């Protein structure tokens, strides 16, 4: 059920650079110098919802939270 987009947050203090986010969600996350994730965008468009969710669910540090907009 493809919903809308959502809001994504990245806790830079908790991130230690596993790199799951920018590998699984390359359109949502970039990689910085140290190999830590960096958000490319603050609000996630509908077509990137799956990527955003994958990043949030696979970060071993629980450094990413994703809140999908209410599906309408």
């Amino acid at each position, binding site marked *: 059920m493809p919903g809308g987009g959502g809001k994504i947050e990245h806790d830079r203090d908790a991130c*230690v*650079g596993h790199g799951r986010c920018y590998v699984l969600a390359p359109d949502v996350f970039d990689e910085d110098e140290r190999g830590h994730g960096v958000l490319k965008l603050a609000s996630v468009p509908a077509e990137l919802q799956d990527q955003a969710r994958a990043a949030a669910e*696979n970060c071993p540090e629980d450094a990413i939270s994703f809140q999908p907009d209410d599906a309408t």
Partner: protein
Amino acid sequence: MSSHTNNPPEADSDSINFYDPAVAAHPQPVFRRLRDRCPVGKPIPGGAVCLSRYEDVLFALRHPEIFSAVMPAGLIGNVRPLIPLNVDPPEQTKYRKFLDPLFSNKKMLAMEKGVREIASNIVDRFADDDGCEFNTAFAIPYPSTVFLQLMGLPADDLDHFLSLKNAIIRPDAEDPEEQAKIRNESGEKIYAYFNKYLDEIEKSPRDDLLSLFVTAEVGGERMNREEILDICYLFLLGGLDTVTSTLGCMVSYLAQHPDRRQALVDDPALIPSAIEEMLRWETPVIQVVRTVVQDYTIGGVELKKGDPVTLVLGSANTDDEQFPNADEVDFERMPNKHIAFGSGPHRCLGSHLSRLELRVALEEFHRRIPEYTIKPGETPVYSHAIREVTYLPLQFGKGQK
């Protein structure tokens, strides 16, 4: 050296002792019993307390102010603590800020061509044979060759390099005192080996990793010789056997599960997520160790300052509370927050390098040898602590090249 043809001794089917070499090939059921019966406890009376639930292991890894990674030197022939493994934040962070960019995902991907060439050259040596002993033929030389190149050390040093680390990891002696002696002697040789190159580099820096160690500023000043040696020592002991073991575990698994192997051969795009799942299931680095530095109660068990604690990564990674149907190996498992590379500040520095090495190895091996099984009548032999498949006899199928 253990005899290769011997089957491993029968494991006690009710044991929770995951240290038992007899369970090294299939530790997962032992982890399950351990989590069920004493998630925070001592599987061996008198031994260290083990944490075996995902949640507890993760907590300990992320809280160095309670579970410190600082260790006395000398356990593996080293005369000083290893950097950055035996240093806690904030001191440790200074080293990671310097090292992380050198081992970032981007930097590692930029080496892919060279790594692939190394893998392909090694496969060339045996691709036309009927089979191979995978550990000697591929899993051992591959990561070391990559590593020598990365560090800027001569490829001809391979055998010397391997013998130095082997003497530390598997000293050829039964008696613990004798083992310590071999380790210490080999440790001295390791320091001498790196010292020799570092002397040369100090005179004329080159364009390689070791030269960067000599010239770069870390936390505002250059590292001294001891700091550099303590990093190199850890690289030698942490960056080679781990990849060898992981590759062995993976290829052994695939050799015993033809449908899974075939799935990867048919669709190599599946390899990255299959690697994550095999890292989870096999967790070659079964455990890491910490010392409690402030009294703390976890899972109803009181830990006292100074207590050694073992964090059983292998058990955490097969915990149903975190991984639904944890016993099922699902190459498309999603999500998969395994901690085979640890978690928290000490997250494996080499995780991006390892992922590259593992993917390229499977791609190149399967490209030339799409069909293989365990050689009929033989059994792979696993060692414990780090789960190296010390003997992995493969038979290649259907004569394809």
